[in-house]
């Protein structure tokens, strides 16, 4: 059970972390969806060609980070509306992956390189048998561990490093940063590039997890990740929690499909309703706490 929840959560978490950095830098990227898609394609194409999942992940990370950088450079340089250019990236991603797929694999459909094994799950022998902790810590793909390490690293990065400090400053008050000699555009660009990196991993996890690239495999995860950023109160820990909430809701809905007498199609709404309920409940709780004495 925990293993499933972790599996569902990983891509959301990775993408949301990427989005979080850009939000904190004051230049929220809505192109997460497109980045994930490209990341998934590049990871699978390279892994299929080289037979090494690691090479696929690395290539995907490099490529999408570079693409995100170019996107950021263009958007910042031309002061274009980042929402509209983000939409453009999402459209480009769908079109370009289809085109590249046709050129490289002769199909615009499912790409499934022969001999590419689905991702191995790492089990940690000593911990594996522990009741709850065993499920939480053992038996996941490399991406789950990566997402946790990156969440932690991101928290440290934002709080403890020079670049992190400057990224946050750029988002909180660009002018205050400017007068201290910090160029917010530069740090926004770094943040946007980082979001590409995170989304590349999210995408690689999806395609390598299925052992195939499927057009539109991101399936709206980039959008839900955007919601997770706000649901999580724009903090790293909050984003982890928000991703977990959505993953649990999604898991419950998957389970319910086979066990509850509600039509499966109707249950597709369940994760959103649960998340909505949690969101509203949290808002009411927060409002109650800030009351006058």
């Amino acid at each position, binding site marked *: 059970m925990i293993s499933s929840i972790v599996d569902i959560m990983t891509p959301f978490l990775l993408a949301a972390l990427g989005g979080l950095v850009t939000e904190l830098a004051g230049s929220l990227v809505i192109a997460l969806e497109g980045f994930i898609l490209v990341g998934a394609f590049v990871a699978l194409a390279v892994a299929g060609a080289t037979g090494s999942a690691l090479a696929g992940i690395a290539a995907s990370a490099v490529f999408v980070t570079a693409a995100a950088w170019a996107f950021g450079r263009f958007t910042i340089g031309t002061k274009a509306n980042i929402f509209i250019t983000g939409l453009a990236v999402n459209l480009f991603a769908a079109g370009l992956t289809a085109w590249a797929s046709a050129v490289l694999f002769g199909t615009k459909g499912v790409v499934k390189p022969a001999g590419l094994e689905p991702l191995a799950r790492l089990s940690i022998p000593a911990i594996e048998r522990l009741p709850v902790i065993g499920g939480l810590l053992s038996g996941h793909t490399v991406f789950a561990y990566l997402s946790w390490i990156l969440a932690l690293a991101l928290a440290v990065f934002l709080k403890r490093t020079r670049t992190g400090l400057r990224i946050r400053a750029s988002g909180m008050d660009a002018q*205050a940063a400017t007068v201290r*000699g*910090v160029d917010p555009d530069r740090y926004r660009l770094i943040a946007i590039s980082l979001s590409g990196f995170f989304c590349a991993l999210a995408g690689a996890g999806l395609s390598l997890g299925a052992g195939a690239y499927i057009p539109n495999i991101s399936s709206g995860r980039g959008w839900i990740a955007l919601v997770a950023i706000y649901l999580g109160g724009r903090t790293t820990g909050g984003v982890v929690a928000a991703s977990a909430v959505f993953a649990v809701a999604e898991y419950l809905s998957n389970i319910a499909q086979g066990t509850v007498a509600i039509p499966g199609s109707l249950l597709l709404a369940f994760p959103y309703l649960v998340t909505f309920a949690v969101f509203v409940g949290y808002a009411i709780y927060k409002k109650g706490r800030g009351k006058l004495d």
Partner: protein
Amino acid sequence: MEAVRVAGIGKYFSSNGVTALKDVSFALERGEIRAVAGENGAGKSTLMHILSGLIEPTAGEIEIEGKPVTFASPADALSAGIGMVHQTPRLILDFSVLENCMLGAEGRGSFLKYRSAAARLEALISEYGFDLDPAMKARDLSLSQKQKTALLTMLYRNIRILLLDEPTAALAPQEVERLFDFLERFAASGGSCILITHRLPEVMRISRKVAVIRKGELVADVETASVTAEKLSHLMVGGELKMNLPACSPQGDTVLYEAASVSRRVGGRTLLDSVSFALRSGEVLGFVGMREDGLEALEGVVSGFDGATGGAITLSGTDATGADTGALRSRGARYVPARKLERGLSLRATVSDNLVTDHYKDMSSGGVLDLEALSAYATRLAGYFDLGADIRMSAHRCSGGMLQKIILSRELSDVPTLLILAEPETGLDLASRYRLEHRIVELRNEGTGIILFSTDLDEALALSDRIAVLYAGRIVRIFDCADFASMDPEIVRHVIGEAMLGIDGCATGPAGAGPILAAPAGTGPGSGVAP
């Protein structure tokens, strides 16, 4: 040796076709404190922004310590040793004092070295005797602490040339003295300083030389000792200004507004502690103190923005406890807030729209606005403070002084029953201040009751009939200004200043114990007396 030399500096804004500066040249010695005086929009700030690298001049050259420089960004200016402290301190509110100082000067390595940075900051703080905790969030700082933090951010990076834009606006007199002490020590250690101010006594007190800018041109650059304050104001305005206000009018004796034991507690913190006072119509009651000492909280309650958690309020004899902004407005209250940008106007609306938010309903029928009437009305209002701008332009293009004029034009246009004025003179030039003071007297004579909130003691003294001092959420003293008439202004400032800082021993004692406390002129029960 010369610290800064600028030659022939000019600035033309192609975006709106305005020439902000024309051929400005002057030099600043090392160890010198130079005052720059001028009206709103004269170009002082533009000059400072050029020196701090925020904007590039369209003409002219800058030399720093003999070397010609060009600044493409504040980063360049900072590395050349020039730093600016802005009028509204540019701090990152969610950062601590320490993080604000570190930003942009993090030191070597990718990782932040909080511990060594904190040690260095502590040393600076104690060296200059600031009352600051490096771990505090900038959001929670008082305005004077913010100003000090902004100074610290510059000191932290070994700035040799400090540019200060109206640094004394929010400081108590004693704090201004401390700031000046600091500047003198800074200058003595070889630093140089350019100080923008419109307070002529301060110019006389601190500067060796003073430069006057008018309409983008340097009209004087003289030894301070060689000019008088009158001469300076003449230079700034470009003509004589009548500065003699009408004499105090007799006050009415009906109680217009009464607060009885008003308290406000939020999240366990007591912001206001049983504040009681009465305001008569035709009276200006000034509240002074630090914003966090209850000034901000009382402004919030009086204006209807925040609710009181205890006590009662009456306006014109009827209950107004818990009345919100809309209810107060419809009962004839008008409000000039201290937080202009948040509460005073909308930067996303046009100047015209901002001017008519008080009257659009009167110029409509059946829910449809009469645009011509509105436009004529806005044009008329814009003339009041001589706004000098196209009223169709977006407010975000206005300077701080212009924004303040917009707010004042709107809120003071009618004769309100109750007028709440918070920091009304911030950013105003001499001419507008004169006009404002004139209008306040007019309104007072018409019977308007005015509650003034100010951190600027001079402003409060100039405008008020009575002055109440807030400290730690309570009224510690109420002074009657008539009693000050014959006293040395310096002593008055000192006495009130001590009350503001809570150091005259009255903060905890009964309000009546102070030496100069006058009995309230009113006869209402408890009016004017703090518990």
